[in-house]
C-alpha cells in the first residue's frame, strides 16, 4: 500500500468526515440573503442561504456540488458561520483568503476554527480555488 501521508495533509480526517456527513446541506426556505458561486472550469457550484437574528447568523443552508475540497469547505464554513455578524464573516473570509494564497503559518490564522483543517490544501496550489468557492458564495450575500 502506498504511503499517503502527504495526501492526508490535503484530505485531512476532518475533511473526509465533513464530506461523508455534510452539515447544513438542507436548503433554507425563507432566507434573508442568498448567494451562488460557480467555477465553470470544473463545474463546481455552491449555493448558500443565510437567516439572521439580531444581526447575527442564526441558520445556514449550503449546497456544494463538485469536488471533495469544495464540499468539505462548504460544510465546515456553514458550522463556523453560525452566530457571526456580517463584519466578523467578512474578516474571516479575508483572513482565510490571505492564508490560503500565501505561506502564512497556521498560528497567524486567528480564530478560524475548524477551517484550519483546510490549510493542507496549500500543498496542492491548483486546488486552493476549490476551497475558496464557498467563500465566494458567502461574499455574494454580504
Amino acid at each position, binding site marked *: 500500500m502506498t504511503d499517503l501521508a502527504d*495526501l492526508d495533509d490535503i484530505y485531512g480526517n476532518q475533511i473526509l468526515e465533513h464530506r461523508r456527513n455534510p452539515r447544513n446541506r438542507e436548503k433554507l426556505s425563507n432566507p434573508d440573503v442568498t448567494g451562488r458561486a460557480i467555477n465553470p472550469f470544473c463545474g463546481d457550484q455552491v449555493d448558500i442561504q443565510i437567516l439572521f437574528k439580531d444581526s447575527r447568523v442564526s441558520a445556514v443552508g449550503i449546497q456544494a456540488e463538485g469536488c*471533495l475540497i469544495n464540499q468539505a469547505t462548504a460544510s465546515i464554513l456553514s458550522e463556523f458561520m453560525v452566530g457571526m455578524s456580517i463584519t466578523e464573516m467578512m474578516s474571516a473570509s479575508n483572513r482565510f483568503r490571505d492564508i490560503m494564497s500565501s505561506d502564512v503559518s497556521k498560528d497567524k490564522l486567528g480564530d478560524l476554527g475548524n477551517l484550519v483543517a483546510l490549510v493542507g490544501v496549500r500543498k*496542492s496550489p491548483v486546488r486552493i480555488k476549490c476551497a475558496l468557492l464557498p467563500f465566494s458564495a458567502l461574499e455574494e450575500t454580504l
Partner: protein
Amino acid sequence: MLDIQKIRKDFPVLGREVYGKPLIYLDNAATTQKPDTVIRSLVDYYENYNSNVHRGVHKLSMESTERFEEAREKVACFINSKSSNSIIWTRNATEAINLVANTWAQEHVKSGDEIVLTAMEHHSNLVPWQKVAKDKQALLKYIPLTADGRLDLTNIDDIICSRTKLVSIVHVSNSLGTINPVEELTAKARKVGASVLVDAAQSVPHMPVDVQQIDPDFLTISGHKMLGPTGIGALYAKEDILESMEPFLRGGEMVLEVTYEDASWNSLPMRFEAGTPNIADAVGMGAAVDYLSAIGMKSIRQHEVDITSYALDAIKAINGLDHYGPDDMSQRGGVISFNSPGVHPHDLGTFLDRLGIAVRTGHHCTMPLMRMLGVPATTRASFYLYNTKSEVDVLIDGLTEALGYFNDGSR
C-alpha cells in the same frame, strides 16, 4: 516493437521523481515530453548560429535561414505535403485554425452558408467558427455522436449538403480518443463543393498522416504535442489556396514592397509569417520530426494500440468506473477518459499526482462535449511512445486505491 527502455533514456524528464516517486507521465494529449535531440537542437541554435533569418548577408544569418527552411521541409515531408510552401509556421494549432478563420473564412463564408463541425471539437476548432458564423450570418452544424463516442453518420448527407461551405473536423478527439473518418468526410465535402479543415493536433503526433491521401484544404498541427518545443505549430494548406488568400498578420517579413500609402505581399510561405519567426523552435520541431521519423510512425501507432488496449481492459475491470469513447482500437487513439460517479476528477487527479502519476482532469477544452456527456469533467490518461505497461499497472493500482480512499474512507 519499440525498445521502450531505450527510448525512455532519450527523454531526460522521465528520470525525474515527484514526491519521491518516479514520474509517470500520462498527460501526453496536453503536451508531450521532449527527447534530448530536440533540447540539444535548441542549445545548438542559441550557442552556435542564432541570428535573424532571411536577407542577412552574414554567415550566422545564412546558417539560421538554411536550418529554419530545412525544418519547414522536414515538416512538409513528414505529412507528405507536395511543397514546403504549404507549411506556414504558427505558435500552435489554435493559431493555425484562427489564421484560416480570419482570412479564408472571412472572405469566403457568406450569409446562409453552413459550417459543419463535430460534437467533439476542441474549443480551438469551435470558438473561431462561432465568430465567423456570427460575423457572416452563417450557420454552425454539428455531426452528432453515437453512445460510444463515435461520429453518428446516419444523417450525414443532410448535414454535409449544398449549403455547406466548410467542414472543419478533429482527426483524433483529445477527450474521447475517437479516430474520425476524415478521408471519407473530406470526400463527402468535395462532392458538395465544400472546403475541409482537419484539426490534426492529436493525429499527426501519433500515427502516419498523409495530406495527399486525406486531401484536405487545410490541416493544423501543434509542435509541442509531437515532441517539439512549445510555441511552434504549423498550418498546412494547399498552395493555390494560400496564394489566393489575403495575409493574416502584417508587418516585417511578409511584405514585398511598402510605401507610406500601401504594401504588396511577399511570396509563400513568408506572406503569412509577419515579424521575426520563432526560429529556434521551428528548428526544434524539425528535430522532433527527425526523431519520430527515425522510430517510425507505424511502430509508434502500434505501441499506442498495444498499451491503450491493455489499459482499457484494466479500466473496464475496475468497479464503478465509466469510460468514454469507442472500444475498437482501430477507431481509438492513445487517450482514455473515465469517471467514477462519486469521486470528482480533481480529487482523483490530486490523489494520482501524489503517487507520481500525471493525468489531466477537467473539461479538456471540450466543454460542450462534457455537458453532452452529463459530466462536469473527466479524468484522462493519454499515452505516447515512451509509456510502458508497468506504468499502466501503477495507474490501475492507483485508481483502485483512490476509489477506496474517497468512497469508503478506506486507508
